[in-house]
């Protein structure tokens, strides 16, 4: 296989890793406003429980995005330059959302104060809902194609990115991540919240089947090649499977299948773009894999590095999931260890 094509596949794999892993992080973050029930202190405990289901792993999950972006820069400089400058405002919004969310995770427990926790939860909400939608909008536009000039500069403007197909794409990733998150919570917790998460997952599996399934069909019919019907079939089967296994209480299977649905979506997205990295619109200029790629020498170096390191990354990252495999309940959540707001204000140094 041509090295440039190989790197197109590798970048698709990196996006798969990112969306499968951070997909449930986003889902858990979004569900923090939906799942908790009961009195105020019980809800706070459940919110903390939810944050802690992803506590040890979310940062490692996000590195898949950093690696995907870095690999795009290195292997396809033209793609990186056109995409990132062209999709400027959506990416800005995603960046700000991710910043707020990460800081809120880390600092939420540092100050023991209800108002502080509320503000951090707001940052987590914004930081989960916004990227969950916008990543879909970005990727759907890559499927649909964008307006490029002869120098491979994006000339479509901001509003062209907010077309119906892309907006439905945003809702597709949103529902997929909500479902993925609910299934993950059911897998990672025990007690009442586990049952509630399964109930939500049941509803969400129908919603995702309609919304994400609808978008996948539209993408396939309007923009993709014949072979990606396989991905469409996989997505459909996986989403149906989530509903069935979730109802049967097979949470491990439900999680595997919701992950498979995301994998299928990524295969469809990258499969429909191929052989372009940024397809043109209405037969206009496009940016192809060959045009965007780095030189064979650079790609060869990158290939060696990826071959040597990626299996290791997968190995030690899987190990952390094994280390933190225990199901959590609200009883596992210790009393808040943060300093009170008064103490923070009184600091004398």
């Amino acid at each position, binding site marked *: 296989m041509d090295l440039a094509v190989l790197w197109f596949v590798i970048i698709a794999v990196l996006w798969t890793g990112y969306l499968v892993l951070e997909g449930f992080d986003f889902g858990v973050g979004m569900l923090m406003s939906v799942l908790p029930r009961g009195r105020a202190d019980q809800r706070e405990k459940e919110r*903390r429980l939810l944050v802690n289901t992803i*506590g*040890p792993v979310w*940062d*490692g999950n996000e*590195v898949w995005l*950093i*690696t995907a*972006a*870095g*690999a795009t*820069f*290195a*292997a*396809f*400089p*033209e793609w*990186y*330059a*056109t*995409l*990132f*400058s062209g999709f*400027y*405002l959506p990416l*800005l919004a995603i*960046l*700000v959302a*991710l*910043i*707020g969310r*990460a*800081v809120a995770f880390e*600092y*939420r*427990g*540092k100050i023991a104060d209800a108002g502080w926790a509320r503000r951090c939860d707001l940052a987590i909400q914004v930081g989960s809902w916004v990227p969950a939608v916008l990543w879909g909008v970005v990727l759907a536009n890559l499927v649909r194609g964008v307006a490029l000039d002869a120098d491979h500069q*994006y000339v479509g403007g901001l509003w062209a990115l907010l077309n119906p197909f892309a907006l439905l794409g945003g809702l597709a990733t949103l529902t997929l991540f909500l479902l993925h998150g609910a299934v993950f919570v059911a897998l990672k917790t025990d007690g009442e919240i586990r049952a509630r998460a399964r109930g939500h997952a049941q509803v969400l599996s129908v919603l995702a089947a309609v919304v994400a399934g609808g978008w996948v069909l539209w993408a396939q019919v309007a923009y993709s090649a014949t072979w990606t019907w396989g991905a469409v079939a996989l997505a459909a089967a996986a989403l149906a499977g989530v509903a069935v296994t979730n109802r049967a209480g097979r949470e491990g299977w439900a999680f595997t299948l919701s992950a498979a649905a995301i994998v299928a979506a990524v295969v469809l997205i990258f499969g429909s773009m191929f052989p372009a990295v940024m397809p043109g619109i209405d037969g206009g200029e496009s940016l192809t894999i060959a045009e965007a790629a*780095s*030189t064979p*020498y*650079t790609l060869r*170096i990158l290939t060696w*590095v990826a071959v040597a*390191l*990626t299996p290791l*990354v997968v190995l*030690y*990252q899987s190990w*952390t999931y094994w*280390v*933190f495999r*225990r199901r959590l309940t609200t009883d*596992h959540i*210790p009393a808040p*260890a943060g300093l009170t707001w008064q103490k*923070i204000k009184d*600091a*004398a*140094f």
Partner: protein
Amino acid sequence: MDALDLARWQFAITTVYHFIFVPLTIGLAPLVAGMQTAWVVTGNERWLRLTKFFGKLLLINFALGVVTGIVQEFQFGMTWSEYSRFVGDVFGAPLAIEALAAFFVESVFLGVWIFGWDRVSKKVHLACIWALAVATNLSAFFILAANSWMQHPVGAVYNPETGRAEMSSIGEVLTNSTLWAAYPHAIAAAFLTAGTFVAGIATWWMVRLVRTRRPEAVATAREVYRPAVLVGVVTILVAGVGVAVSGDVQGKLMFEQQPGKMASAEALCEGEEAAAFSVLTVGDLGAGCDGVRHLVTIPGLASYLGTGHFSGPESYLPGVADVQEAYSERYGDLTAAGEPVTYTPPLEITYWSFRLMIGLAGFSAALAVAALWFTRKGRVSDNLWLSRLAVAAIPAPFLASSFGWIFTEVGRQPWVVAPNPTGIDQIRLLTERGVSTAVPPGMVLASMVTFTLVYGVLAVVWFRLMRRYAVEGAPDVVHDESPEARAEDADDADRPLSFAY
């Protein structure tokens, strides 16, 4: 302001801000790892208390380093897309390798370190903080490899068909002389920052406890904080020597590779032999070197910094005017407006940032010497002036690092990729040609304002948390949470998390 100015301001703001957190993480992670090692090896509880104390501060700091780092990676493509097209074939590789080789290790093992005190064995847990420490230092290497290539492009050829730089040797990129001077300098500066941080906080605590006159407090000062002071002081001394030696090597390289930066740092108008190092100037540096009067100078020192000779023909340092003439002849670039390019950077920024970088490092040295004296032969001190010096010294190396980067990046102007005098002339890029052309000024303004506001709020939160958790001090009671220290019959399923958000 046009998109170019806005993009420059945004890059300056986000980069200087990012590098507030980075040096502390790079230096403090190995120090905390060292403290935890001391606990595992000796079993002495003081080291566990210090590990928990400085570990908490490390985590508060690490979070902001991570989130501001993602912005750095994205904005090459967002606001500097034409730069990215020109250099991507070379510059992208170290960034991708950094993510794969270092960021994954950092993030994954940090998660285990924070949450895994009771889930993995003591040795594995210790290995996690060391993995973090090594990875942060490794990531610095790849980032500096990328930056050094912008200062001194090597291992690349120019493709006239695409108008792009292409990598011809990853070996040359990774053995760039500029990199091997910049890397030790940046790492030594990071350890200087962390050493000052540890010594500063521990000294303040020592003095505070001794002043209470309560026997158990004085005992804590002696048993817990005095060793931490020494850890910090030794780190400052070793790192200080490293900063000076590597900085000296960098000066000589800069003389060969970027004579314009050197001349501007010295506000040297015309070239001369035995050039003096100017400590203080009056006059308007902004108006160019003609407006400058050097007030306090050290004879021959500028020549020595650049050439290794105090006097004689070999000590000749070219001035701003010489560089302008030579570069105009060799490259003859025109600006977008059709004017000849000014090949030297803004004097007032390079001149002062260079001096502030060096001068601010003096605070760390003063603290090290004072703290060594007051803790000699097992003593603890209640000296208030020592305590004040300790607190004053903490921010100094952070600022010195900022000024160091301002110097090296502004000093490279007008280039974003400075031409290598002994390399391929076509591999050079004016900063004004690197900016994104597809992004209108309004969008850059929006992002610049957004980042500035968000970063401003985060700076306040970060500072208050760091200060307050430093004032909180090391925990009084710690216990070994590791699985091997647990009773055999302890029920794993019901045990609360050892750490939770």
